[in-house]
């Protein structure tokens, strides 16, 4: 049945986060505005991105000052899992109750719909759709992510409560796919949000998606899906990457 192979990929460690300074895993990033006039770009101090203030709050530098009070300025935190047995039990529950955020970000979203049908019946795997990120635990990125969509993806991802999992659906999420050289499509999704499972293909069929879910469940049960913690740990790196492409930021640095 599986017409597209499912490929999982461990996350490339971007390096240890620095002290209120941005880790720079790629010499081409972050320092100095990349291309363009720099107007509306990432705020820099001494040529480096400032996400956190000295009180370790979010700087929210791109928000208008009158808006700042309306957004929470707490940065995300790494939350340690419980110990062995208990965490295993919780992970089992998490893996058996995967609620997908109903947000079709690209053309791949069309492959999500058949899962609801009697033929694929995702419910038997404990998977169901959920219309609000607050209650969802899985974010399926449905294919290519343009810069504009990326902004919404980041926002929705941050609004989900951890532990949360991301499925990259389709080649575009892996390396840009057929849009690899577009001025407007990101190439590597994992530079912007942590991804747990990639599903290759253009487009992968629903079966492949289901296979990806099964893979995800296995990984959750093994305790390997700590994307939320990774995101918090390397928060500044992710932010720098995001802000580098999202020019009109106009939102807090972390969307609670």
């Amino acid at each position, binding site marked *: 049945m599986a017409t597209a192979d499912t490929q999982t990929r461990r996350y490339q460690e971007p390096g240890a986060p620095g002290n209120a300074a941005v880790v720079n895993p790629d010499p081409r990033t972050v320092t100095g505005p990349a291309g363009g006039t720099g107007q509306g770009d990432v705020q820099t101090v001494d040529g480096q991105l400032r996400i956190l203030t000295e009180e370790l709050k979010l700087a929210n530098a791109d928000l208008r000052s009158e808006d700042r009070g309306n957004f*929470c300025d*707490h940065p995300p935190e790494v939350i340690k899992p419980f110990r062995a047995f208990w965490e295993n039990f919780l992970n089992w529950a998490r893996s058996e109750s995967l609620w997908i955020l109903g947000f079709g970000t690209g053309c791949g979203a069309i492959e999500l719909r058949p899962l609801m049908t009697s033929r694929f019946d995702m419910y038997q795997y404990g998977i169901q759709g959920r219309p*609000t990120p*607050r209650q969802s635990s899985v974010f399926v990125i449905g294919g290519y992510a343009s810069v504009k969509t990326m902004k*919404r993806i980041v*926002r929705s991802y941050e609004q989900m*409560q951890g532990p949360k999992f991301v499925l990259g659906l389709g080649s575009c999420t892996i390396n840009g796919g057929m849009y690899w050289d577009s001025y407007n499509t990101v190439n590597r999704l994992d530079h912007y949000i942590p991804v747990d499972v990639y599903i290759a293909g253009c487009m992968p069929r629903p079966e492949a998606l289901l296979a990806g879910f099964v893979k995800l469940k296995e990984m959750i049960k093994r305790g390997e899906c700590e994307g939320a913690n990774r995101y918090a740990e390397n928060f500044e790196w992710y932010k720098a990457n995001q802000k580098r492409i999202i020019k009109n930021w*106009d939102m807090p640095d972390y*969307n609670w």
Partner: protein
Amino acid sequence: MVSPVVLIAASLGFAFLYPLVERLGERAATRIALLVLAAFAGTTAGWTVSLIGSGVALTADTAGFVAPLSIQLQVTAVDALAMTVVTLLALAALVQLTERATDRWHGKQVVLFFVLLLGSYGLIMTRDLFNVFVFMEISGISVFGLLSTSRDGRVFEAGFKYMVASGLASVFFLIGTAFVYRSVGSLSIADITAAAPVALASPVGVMGLLFLVTGILIELKPAPANGWAIDTYQAADPGIGALLSAVNATAMVFVLVRVMPILAGASPVFVPLVLIAGAGAFLIPQAQALLQESFKRMLGYSSVAQIGLVVLAIVIPAAGVPFAGVALAVPLVLLLNHAVAKATLFWIADATGDDASGFGGSLPASLRGRPALLVVAAIAVLALLGLPPFPGFWAKWSLVMGLAAGGHIGLLVVVLLGSLLEVVYLGRWLIMRMRHVDDDATVVSQRIPADFAESRADAVSGAASGASDASGAAAGAIPVGATVSLGLATLLMAGASVAALLGSGVGMPVLIVLIGVAAFAVLDVLRIPLRLQAIVAIAGLSWWGVSAVSGAALTLQSGFVLLFVGGAVVQLVALLARPGRRAGLVALIVGMVLSLAALTAATSPLEVFVAWELMTLTSFFLVVRGRFAAAASVRYLTFSLASALLMLAAFSLATAANPAFGTGGGVIGTLTTSVPWAAVLLALSVLIKLGAIGLHIWLPSSYAEAEDEVSSLASSVLSKAGILLLFLGAGSFAAPLFAGVALNQVLGWIGVITALAGGMMALFQEDIKYTLAYSSMSQLGYMVLAFALMSHLGWVTALYLAVNHLLFKGMLFLAVAGIVMRTGTRLMYQMGGLIKRMPFSFVSVLVGIIAVSGVPPLAGFGGKWLLYTALIEQGWYLQAALALFSSGIAFLYLFRLIHSMFLGQRKTHHDTVTEAPAAVLIPQFVFLVIIIAISMFPNLLIKPLQTIVEPAFASSVRWEGYTVISSLGYWNGNAVMYVVIGVFLAPLLWLLAVKGRTYRVEQFNIVFAAERPHTPQSTHYAYNFYGHYQKAFGRLLDPWVERFWSGVSATAGTVSQTLRAWNTGNPQTYALQILLYLFLTYLVARGGL
């Protein structure tokens, strides 16, 4: 003692001498004229004092002969009193006319003034029929002279009309006199009276008397043949108007008094004739005045109407009505009351210098900021309307009682209807004049800014007069003349009021009301700040309340005293939050509370009614203080006084049937009457006050547009007066009405429909105060429903609901007051998210709405449990279902209220809003503690209420510990509370145990379809919250009642217009009218012959 002739001679003499006196200089001459007039006043006053003492009449026969050969002048005590008042008013008038800023009187005007006075003196004193004619001519010519001195063409024209009309009247009178002389052979009234039954009973004699009486009536300017007089009032100098209305009319009434015995003796047709004439003269002008735009013309209508009332009052004793005391007391008091008040109003028209009657919103609020003038104007209007403590009230009360006792139901209706019409136009004039300058007098329902802008102008709806006082003060100093004349008039009125009060025999509680108001008014005059006054009021009322109830057994009376005084004292604390001065506020509140207390203590129908009227008055002046309350207070005044008039009618009918009606006092069923109509009228009266459906249109805007603290008092405390009255009149309502349906069943349905309709209306209000006002209406509906059950449980429920409503509505209105104070808006959609800024207010509102909606475990559920148990027990199943439905609707608007204000998105400009002042919060939390206490221990409230109801019904529930058991079910408030605490704490602890790391986020941290909110305004869902509900009900929710009353108002306007069209302004028409009037009297008399 000075002979009466001297007065005549002196007037005449001074009039002749005046041109010589004027050689001393104009000012000096007028001063001397004043001195002369003062001397006259002294003379008449001297007569009054000595005659009242001696009880004999002062008689003077002219030319050395005795009557009937000579002209006899006679002064009785009554005459002397009237002349004193007339002289004093004339003196006041002359002061004003000669001392005012422009167009001062001098020369021949003063001469004519004295001639007019001479004529009036003569009319009062003479006992000779032909002499009456002479003095009538003198008066008429002098008035014409005064009018024709004006260079204004309109005035001259009016003078001409006056001349024609009074000439006709004189001719009639003269013809009549000739006939009478032919039949009797004497002109002495005494002789004629004696001879009348024999000599004048013939058709010729009757014909003569018909001419005679028609002449007098025409001189009294009766509708519908009075257009000429009205034109005169409108065109003439207000000073002339005052003279005509106060001096001349008074004198003419005395002529009628003299002639009445002749008429009554001669033929039985005359009493009905004059009654009909009086009724017409009273009712028609009141209707005509309704849409009157010229103030002077309106006063003219009012004058002729009042004289009509006096004529009625004169005739009724002759018709055999038993009156206590002096035979002429009622008409005399009415007459003098009218004279003083009307003269005052004419002078105010002169002082303010504009003639607009305050019809419509564009007219100037010319009395705002002129407190002295306002007080005088208010006194004059209230006196004219016959409200306590002014003398007119006592006269009207006696008149109505007399009418009912005499079985004159038709006249009773005429008097009450006319009085109501008078309330509408005079009240409207007063309100328009005292309204806030910003008020366009159109606000009778909530107002939504067209562009959704945040309107900060609406902000200080509560801050009534403060700012405008200063600006208004500059609007005009009052001229010396007006000051003296108005001051004199006010003194007269005050003296008369005191005399009336002392003579009326009302009890101490009523007097205390007036003393209380006066005392705080003095504090205002001394410029004592509001806070200090409030503290004094709190201390005083607490002391008074405690001393009134301490030691007394718990009865309906003491229970309601506790409710009224306690509720008010707690809420008065909120006034401490307002700095500065607020003239009259505390005085009126104290007056209102004391009059409520007086209502509980009343021992006779009169005292109940006086207390009721005082409550209406004080609360009216509280409502009218609101910034945009003008239109609302017109409604408030009209409906409240309509309610009072209905009550008056009910009392009069009940007393007529049973003279012992209402004596006893303070217990359930005091005001029980077995007359069905009286019961219906009483019920109607109370239903108006309770804002029952169909009669409610005054309620929302009055409660909402009043100042915030006043709203809370009115809604929580004042509204219970109606409930008290229901209990006082309890026995009346059980009587079968028609086809076996008892009145209480009708009341029950009205109650439940009111509850439902009030709730429905509350749903769709954006203005928070309108929501609460409609909510009050709805809650009062429940109380009526519960009361109407006429069972033990029903009455306990009604009282329980009353107490509960007092508590939560006080909390809600005060919380809203605090919020409005801080946010500067009353529109809910302009608020939002205030929970974090005003947490205490939130708690108060939360407890309040739980208490309203009846959600256990709070006390509100007790009310619901009692209500449904009582309803089902009595088999009122459908009512029970409807009540439950409307209770669900209450839940809806309450959630909307708390959500729109406290939850959702906070506006950016409210980020710096602070918690309401402590003084506003304290009363709320006092109520909160009480609510929690009676929720935990329902027996604390229910058992005392059972005690109160015990005299009427035996208990139908029993207690087992904290469980109250009825025949249907049971309820243990205490156990419920513990269970609720248990089931609340368990999940809370569980949540605290299992929750992960919880981050406190801000208002824009919401999932917004992957976008972010940009403005709180567009994110806060509050406007048109229940649009779908409105859609579902469709046209059922149209404002039918509002439309009905608009129709009534429009119809009244049309009638008024039609009647007014009769007065064309054309002299020929007027002459024809007078001739037709003669024909009409002839027809009426023929009908009787």
